[in-house]
């Protein structure tokens, strides 16, 4: 087991099918409290499907324990209310609204529960992403790719999550921006958020994570401490490649 303090998320035998096509077969993973766990794998391995099923956007079979509660059929509103947040691959921002409004909406379920003092949460997000503060009155649709990703992560943080799930945060971003995003992911751990990180950029993901799973054709092919996976010859051959020193430098903070 990879959890020392007790898991925030434990998934047993989760499977998802699109009609008769099985996209995910009996996946079991575990995220400990305060940990960063990454799921890496090639295109079409079922990484996005896994996250969508966990938060309830997709129907699934299996057992999902979130914060020690068994969720037979995860339901998006309930999962969000319980503290699970997903930053989807497509970001799904509200393009016609300002950066500030997007952030406010991130805290919607807290507002609904009666928390009215969300300014401090917003200030914390602005501390992490000063660029968002500069652009707070701008429409989300006018942001650059990196800023959109920052806004998507910032909006998710506004929910005060226990578990933050990130789907391909590096997708479509320039290497320097990717590096910035991963440095921030590393720093978020210090604030006590657990993170489930799905990535194709295995090098950057394994550099920041504590534990890793390799997902291939809908099944967990390998798992282990991130440091071990980084040195595993099979992982190096398939996902990391040899002798790309400059990428290591980019992945380091």
């Amino acid at each position, binding site marked *: 087991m990879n959890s020392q303090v007790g898991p925030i998320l434990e998934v047993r035998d989760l499977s998802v099918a699109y009609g008769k096509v099985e996209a995910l077969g009996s996946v079991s993973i575990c995220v400990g409290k305060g940990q960063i766990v990454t799921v890496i794998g090639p295109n079409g391995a079922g990484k996005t499907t896994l996250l969508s099923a966990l*938060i309830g*956007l997709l129907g699934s079979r299996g057992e999902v324990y979130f914060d020690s509660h068994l969720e037979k*059929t995860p339901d*998006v*509103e309930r999962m*969000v*209310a319980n503290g699970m*947040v*997903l930053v*989807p691959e*497509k*970001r*799904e*921002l*509200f*393009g*016609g*609204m300002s950066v500030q*409004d997007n952030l*406010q*909406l*991130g805290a*919607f*379920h807290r*507002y*609904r529960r009666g928390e009215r003092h969300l300014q401090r949460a917003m200030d914390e997000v602005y501390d992490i992403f000063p660029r968002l503060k500069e652009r707070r009155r701008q429409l989300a*649709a006018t942001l650059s790719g990196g800023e959109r990703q920052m806004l998507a992560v910032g*909006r998710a943080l506004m*929910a005060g999550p226990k578990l933050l799930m990130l789907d391909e945060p590096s997708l479509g971003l320039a290497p320097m921006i990717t590096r910035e995003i991963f440095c921030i992911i590393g720093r978020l751990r210090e604030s006590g958020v657990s993170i489930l990180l799905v990535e194709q950029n295995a090098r950057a993901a394994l550099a920041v994570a504590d534990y890793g799973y390799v997902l291939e054709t809908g099944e967990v092919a390998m798992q282990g401490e991130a440091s071990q996976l980084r040195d595993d010859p099979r992982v190096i051959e398939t996902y990391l490649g040899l002798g790309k020193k400059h990428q290591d430098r980019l992945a380091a903070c």
Partner: protein
Amino acid sequence: MDFQIALFLVQDGATNGAIYAMLALALVLVFSVTRVIFIPQGEFVAYGALTLASLQSGQIPGTLWLLVVVSTIAVLAELWRCWRNGLPIGLHGFGWLVGYPLILALLLWYLPLASLPAFVQVLVALAVVVPLGPLMYRLVYQPIAEASVLILLIVSVAIHVVLVGLGLLFFGAEGLRTAPFTDASFEMGPLLINGQQVWVILVSIGLIVGLWRFFSRTLYGKALRATAMNRTGARLMGFSPVFAGKLTFLLAAFIGTLSGVLIAPITTIYYDTGFLIGLKGFVAAIVGGLISFPIAAAGAVLVGLLESFASFYASAYKEVIVFTLIIPVLLWRSLTSHHIEEE
């Protein structure tokens, strides 16, 4: 036509335009959040007016029984859902579905309806008719929320036909008119402005400003706009599309009923009058492309003016002229609009 007649037509057109503006806003709202083209919007106008008329004549309006029956069906639907999903069966979360119609029915039974002050009668009419909106969403649209726009439109037409039929059953075939809110009238130069017209225009301006503040200042309003922009994104923030749908239908039903209550003293309302009024609101909403609130409101005033001038010059063709407006508008919109998909 002299200047005085022109002024009179403008006054009439602006009053009708104010009503069409409110309905157009409701149609745009419902479409942008739920993709439903809300044909039954007009029935809320007729039900609002006729319910108020029944109350003023001291009768219990038939819409109350509709509310009781529809809520009962909704309770059964909720129980069925709990049972199927293995959730604990209890009234938690839908207790109001049982309590609200009962309390309202008791109130209407014991209150001396005809002798209530007009303001209270209006509130009672709203209390009876408005909840039909969210209930309609729960029973009809929620189960098919993911269906195509065409299917949602066909269902809307069906609901419209059913509601018109029920309107005939509840209120009969004769037209009804209610007492005006005020007998005051003002003379402005050559114009005689009656108090009810002032009411219509003030209330619709108030409603438009209120809606604008709701959508730009409150988090619930922003969440509704967010749902219209990006359904998945809004869901991931914990804003349920079911809740968005019910809230939208509540607003639409409120706007429709309020419009009906406002025009009931000016126009004679029949059980099927709502459809034509709603359709003119729809023309205005089309001017705004079913997405733009300000253009829809401006379009509504245009429709109102066009209608009143058409009724002066060619009264037999006044509906034809108003509805023909749709053709140049659609041409103009399809030539100038660029279809943009986000990402």
